[in-house]
């Protein structure tokens, strides 16, 4: 019974947080609603990052590449064809004439993100640790460079403009909701549990016949799909996109959100995205001048980055599992057991990233001999 409740809480908690933010945002001015929508879309990217990094324990600096591909594909194919022919004369023919609906562009973003992630993953996912970090960073650099300068597939150094704006507050919330449900559903699969086993102990997992590469590739592809989908949401939120918006700054922002929230849980990803998102939008408001009480404050440009960076450093040093402790929503409440057994085993004290779950969820049956 308890475990059923726990499962429900694991899904409902993040969704409820999104609903609360959305309801709260809908009471604000139009301009502020835009900020809230932006938080929701950014959190969708954090969920994408979590699906791979949280479950596999491998850090990727390249997930924003998939966001970029989704955003540019969705932006170009939904902008008016006349604008495209005027602003991007060298585009491939099918890119300059095909017109798709905004909804289709979301699906296209997800599809392209998945495809790109799959191709990258096949080449890179045999790497681990630092090499994997460097290699995924290289993918980000390559994507940025190609999208910025190859004018047959994009606008070159110019931004894509006049993209129809349809990601409203509600659409942003729905998009994030879909991403959360997908991430949750994936977490329940056998493949994800096997992947988590490889995260906890790669050697032991391989010893019982788990293919690390295969399960990482599945997670990477799903993560790419969510990232591409988030990219399409993003472009329909902004109405325009340039390569600088989907590059290192966004990589840093989403990574900070994930590690501050807690890398090891979906709840942590959502919590971190919302918490840092609110803080960042407050700070960037304050950089343009804001009234606090009776006095008018203008923070220097760049201060928000400093504060977010410092928070990230402090959290990682003092609470490496993030503010969620890398637990799912109410996970500890439901899995709490009476202490009368008195064995002295403290499940929380020694664990590395996520703890109870890996001991409770039965690992895959061994391949029968």
């Amino acid at each position, binding site marked *: 019974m308890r475990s059923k409740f726990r499962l429900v809480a694991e899904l409902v908690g993040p969704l409820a947080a999104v609903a609360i933010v959305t309801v709260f945002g809908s009471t604000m001015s139009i301009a502020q609603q835009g900020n809230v929508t932006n938080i929701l879309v950014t959190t969708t990217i954090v969920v994408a990052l979590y699906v791979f990094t949280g479950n596999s324990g491998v*850090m990727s600096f390249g997930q924003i590449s998939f966001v970029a591909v989704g955003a540019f594909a969705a932006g170009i194919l939904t902008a008016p064809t006349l604008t495209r022919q005027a602003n991007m004369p060298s585009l491939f023919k099918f890119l300059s004439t095909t017109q798709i609906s905004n909804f289709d562009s979301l699906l296209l973003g997800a599809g392209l993100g998945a495809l790109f992630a799959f191709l990258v993953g096949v*080449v*890179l*996912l*045999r*790497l*681990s*640790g*630092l*090499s994997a*970090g*460097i*290699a995924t*960073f*290289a*993918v980000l*650099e*390559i994507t*940025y*460079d*190609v999208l*910025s*300068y*190859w004018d047959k597939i994009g606008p070159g150094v110019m931004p894509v403009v006049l993209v129809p704006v349809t990601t409203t507050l509600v659409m942003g919330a729905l998009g994030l909701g879909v991403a959360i449900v997908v991430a949750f559903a994936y977490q329940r699969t056998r493949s994800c549990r096997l992947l988590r086993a490889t995260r906890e102990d*790669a050697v032991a997992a*391989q010893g019982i016949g788990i293919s*690390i*590469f295969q399960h*990482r590739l599945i997670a990477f592809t799903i993560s790419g799909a969510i990232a591409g989908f988030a990219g399409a949401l993003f472009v329909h939120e902004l109405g325009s996109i340039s390569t600088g918006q989907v590059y*290192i700054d966004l990589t*840093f922002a989403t*990574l*900070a959100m994930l*590690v501050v929230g807690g890398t090891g849980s979906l709840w942590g990803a959502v919590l971190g995205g919302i918490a840092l998102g609110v803080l960042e939008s407050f700070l960037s408001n304050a950089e343009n001048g804001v009234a606090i009480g009776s006095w008018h404050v203008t923070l*220097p*440009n*760049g*201060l*928000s*980055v*400093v*504060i*977010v*960076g*410092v928070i*990230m*450093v402090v959290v*990682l*040093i*003092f609470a*490496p599992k993030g503010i969620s402790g890398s637990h799912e929503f109410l996970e500890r409440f439901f899995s709490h057991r009476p202490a009368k057994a008195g064995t002295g085993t403290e499940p929380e004290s020694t664990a590395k990233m996520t703890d109870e779950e890996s001991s409770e969820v039965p690992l895959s049956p061994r391949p029968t001999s």
Partner: protein
Amino acid sequence: MSWIGHLVNAVSLGVVYGLVAVSVGLVFGVLRQVNLAQGEVIALGAYSLWMTRDLPVVVRILVCIGVCVAMSLVIQVIIFRPLRGASALTTLIVTFGLSYALEGVWTIVFGTNGQPVSMLSSLNQVVVGGNVGLRWITLVEMGVGGIFFALLVLVLYGSKIGVMMRATAEDFRTARIVGVRIDRVVTLAFVFGGVSAAMVAILFTVQTPLVTPTLGFNLITLGLVGTVLGGIDRLGRATAGGFVVGFVNSMLGAIIPQELLVFLPMLTFMFVIVMLVVRPAGLFTPKGSNVERV
């Protein structure tokens, strides 16, 4: 320019990235942790050259070295001491955050557009003209880089503290058990890291006399890429990796046609990916050694 000229340029950029790799590799060797914030040490060093622009050159160089060493030690105390024993990836992310925060600080304090540093600009004069285009700075770079690396080798292999450093790099716990003063060794690694960062700051600003807030991050990313590419757990290999990345980047820039120059980062990072996939343990790591690969 002839191919000799390109070669000379490539070597000089290679030396700069080799020095960046030294400063990353030294810390990694002792602690098995990555310090991405080393780039911001370089940036601060470069800014210190701007702040001391009215003073004599020798003073400016000494101030720069002092500032870099001090900054390096502050990072060691604030970030690396609490994180001792954490994984390389954790420290990579923490110092990534720190780099970004510091970049914000530079923007606030020194402005977005960068500050001009004119120092030793006479070094940009040509030694051998014509097709070769050899400038004094290139010779100075090779000389300084060579001497520094030789000194480092001398310390590591010829002094007691050097032996301690190598022992720590080999096996942290055992070294501690047999009485190696770990804290002293770690401090020394950061001091050397600071000195090599100062040299990068000086050599780089002579060639490119504009210091912008992103200078450190740009240098360290490519430097770290080179370090991992060469084989991060041996200082010599890491340095060679840094050299290779700088060299290849410069050579590719010279070879490809002008209109394709914008795709230089793509080519460089393609090269990096291919090398990482083919030789995941490092370009200069012998085959058959322990490979981190699944």
